[in-house]
């Protein structure tokens, strides 16, 4: 069983500062491209254990490929408040806000988190490059926008044991760190910045460090985390967790309005289920007037959770003499949704939830069909033939444990 195969390889892709460790741990040698980086798909031969680490122990993910920008200067709050749909003026030092940002037509460009590092300093994370967009909107303002992507390394530690692991290493205790807040602390003499954020919908943290400290921090976490079940975790497991959490993914669930070739590919925050993050009562921000119009007329599209009903799903497979063919990993192929004979939307990602024992998907639906409880038909391929099978619109997040937001008493 333990094969001691070593190999070296060449790559044209960028390597994360954690690669020296992750490349040795990746037993499947399955990698994916993520923003030009080599990122582990799964460390073990199957991703199951990594998924359960996120939900029952702690998964450790290298999230260095995220884009990171530092916005600094007296007018940084003003700039960001114009740029994004959330109200940055009320974001306190040490607080983090998740927000989308839009173009003038109110169509989403990207989404990410904004950390307020000090009164006049913020860190923005995003999926795609946004430097030019931020800078062009900062013209004439007293701010400095810097691409920090390569000068900050980042890890996500996600799962119910993540707090205990960090407490065993961190100089400062994390018990009082609330959901979407952050703190500066040290691991021994290494300065680290920890935000209680993540992409799993579970208790979890993201750790922001100097790349020079990357290996030391990785080793500390793996060593202290061992007795808490820390598990290096790849993108296969993360993808299942983020769908369960109802979290969207750029280029999978929506397309950036800056890259959409045709108008119909663009989505407003309302059409992505992000209406809660649009603050109409704040001063002017990019896209506000268009979004106001959309608000007055109601959006054409909605973004919803869908559950594929088990009994009929199973029946389709029984009819051909097979056990139900559940997807082994999360899928990302656009899949039609029907009401009677009319296509009224499409699912953009879906997965079998190993924990919830439900087949779930995220979908764009014409708003008239998007009410909770609406019955739809989901297109399914069974032994090469297309079938329609029953599905229901359900609320997201599909999985939302109390520990995600709670603090120890």
């Amino acid at each position: 069983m333990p094969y001691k195969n070593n190999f070296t390889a060449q790559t044209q892709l960028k390597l994360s500062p954690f690669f020296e460790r992750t490349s040795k741990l990746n037993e499947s040698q399955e990698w994916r491209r993520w923003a030009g980086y080599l990122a582990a798909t799964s460390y073990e031969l199957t991703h199951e254990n990594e998924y359960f680490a996120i939900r029952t122990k702690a998964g450790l993910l290298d999230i260095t490929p995220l884009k990171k920008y530092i916005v600094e200067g007296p007018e940084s709050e003003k700039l960001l408040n114009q740029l994004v749909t959330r109200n940055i003026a009320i974001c306190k030092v040490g607080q983090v806000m998740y927000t989308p940002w839009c173009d003038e037509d109110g169509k989403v460009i990207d989404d990410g988190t904004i950390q307020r590092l000090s009164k006049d300093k913020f860190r923005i994370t995003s999926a795609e490059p946004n430097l030019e967009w931020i800078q062009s909107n900062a013209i004439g303002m007293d701010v400095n926008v810097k691409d920090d992507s390569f000068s900050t390394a980042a890890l996500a530690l996600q799962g119910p044991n993540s707090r205990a692991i960090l407490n065993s290493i961190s100089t400062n205790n994390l018990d009082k760190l609330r959901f979407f807040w952050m703190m500066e602390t040290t691991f021994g003499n290494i300065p680290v910045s920890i935000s209680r954020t993540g992409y799993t919908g579970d208790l979890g943290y993201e750790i922001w460090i100097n790349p020079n400290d990357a290996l030391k921090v990785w080793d500390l976490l793996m060593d202290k985390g061992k007795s808490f079940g820390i598990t290096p975790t790849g993108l296969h497991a993360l993808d299942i967790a983020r769908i369960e959490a109802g979290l969207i993914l750029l280029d999978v669930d929506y397309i950036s309005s800056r890259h959409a070739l045709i108008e119909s590919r663009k989505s407003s925050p309302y059409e992505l289920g992000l209406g809660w993050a649009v603050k109409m009562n704040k001063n002017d921000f990019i896209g506000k007037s268009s979004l106001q119009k959309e608000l007055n007329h109601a959006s054409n599209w909605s973004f919803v959770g869908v559950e594929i009903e088990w009994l009929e799903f199973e029946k389709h497979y029984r009819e051909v003499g097979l056990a139900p063919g559940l997807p082994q990993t999360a899928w990302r192929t656009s899949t039609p949704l029907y009401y009677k004979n009319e296509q009224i939307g499409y699912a953009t990602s879906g997965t079998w939830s190993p924990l919830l024992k439900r087949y779930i998907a995220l979908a764009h639906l014409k708003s008239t069909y998007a009410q909770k409880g609406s019955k739809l038909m989901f297109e399914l391929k069974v032994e090469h033939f297309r079938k329609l099978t029953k599905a229901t619109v359900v609320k997201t997040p599909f999985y939302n444990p109390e520990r995600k937001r709670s603090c120890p008493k």
Partner: protein
Amino acid sequence: MSKINKYDAIIIGGGHNGLTAAAYLGRSGKKVLVLERRHVLGGAAVTEEVYPGFKFSVCSYVVSLMKSNVMRELMLPKFGLELLPLESTMTPLENDYLIRTADSDQTYREIARHSKKDAENYMRFGPAMGQIGMAVRPILETIAPNPIRPSLSDLSATKKLLDHVKSLTSKQFEYLTKLMTMSSADFLDEWFEYEPLKATMSASGIIGTFMGPRSPGSAYVMLHHYMGDIDGAYRAWGFQRGGTGGVSMAIARSAEHFGVDIMTEMSVQKVIVKNGRAIGVALDNGDEYNSSIVISALDPKLTFLNMIDESELPPDFVSAIKNFRIRGSSGKVNLALDALPDFSCLPGDGRHLRGAISISPSYDHLEKAYDDAKYGNFSEAPFMDIILPSVLDPDMAPPGKHVMSCFVQYAPYHINGGWNDQKREDFGDAVINTISRYAPNIKDIILHRQVLTPADLESTFGLTEGNIFHGELTLQQLFSLRPAVKWADYTTPIKNYFQCGSGTHPGGGITGSPGEMAAKKILGSW
């Protein structure tokens, strides 16, 4: 807790099947009371902190057979059901090992190291058994029809079953017939040649049964273990986070969500029968509770010979229940460990400790272990199915420490001279000595050891003779014969008295199935 004088249904026993039946009845609006004798719920599916900081799945330790519709209908994931994958099975040998993992190519290569023929057949065996499992499932999911003076619904169920049997392919029919009649050793000999592989696979044919791998009928028990699926994958084992008690607690929370009252430390003494009808229960503490119906989740011996006066039952039925085979064959040893066991054949704390560890090097090992039991002794070198729950779920033990669960066979209930404290310790020693042949450090890392003999399983968990399945899974007491002909549909000779434990169709294991089907039968004619 609300105090109601009259319930629609009282369920005796808060094991997982009793709770399942309660949840289904509650879900249909019935007012239900569950009475559990112990201070904890779950029956044999229970987690207890036997030694401070160490949680043991005291009896039942893995989950595979839990029905997916029960999980769905009772919303168990919402109430705490969390099944972690148990990925591998390792058979340690004196100078080698055999390990089967979740990766089929890896498993192929590993078996091929011992036998190329077996490796290829193994790739076909799983799917073939999966298809058989699928073919048998509808039979298991049917309320067993009464073949004696059948009612209309019995006839229609029988016809459905016959139609189903006719729909089987000839291969399926052949395998099914063989599995129903052969010994697991004979059946596996048709497929494989490598002894440790065959012996380990045959072991699921003896679990909970007073038979050896060469005893005819053991192949069916193996099939019973193949019936489980997790997420559509047949023959997948799972470990409940926090131990198997978590499954029972999830069902209990679901039941409470549906308005069921659950009381612990309430020991039922008798079912109150008036004019041939059950009308309530009398407790050891003198309390009485009335209800329209009473359902026993206990095993058939307790259900009929203990809860009811023999005089209330037809004599032929009494003798059928007396003849119901419920021989205990296994014990359980739970260990609190200071460190992980280090197997000489595969040292270190690698991936192999994350799955099952099977002490089953050969048919002879198993058969000799059975020989000891046949003549009234526990096995000197027993078969064991071991897992290390703390490797899968670190919360089971303090950081860096571990718990080890050893299912041990054989330990006969009727042991020469009877079970006593000395015998229990001797049995524990035999177990540890056997493990130490493969993991020599075991003796140095034990912080606490809990040894459960069949007599302990009986006295603590109410399992007659310590039989984990509420009666052996042998052909003569399955389906329409479980527990007795004419009374396999969850009814009993006493009106308004029903049964829903593992001693009813389709039998033992954490399935929820008897509880579910009993409730559905009862609701169908309420």
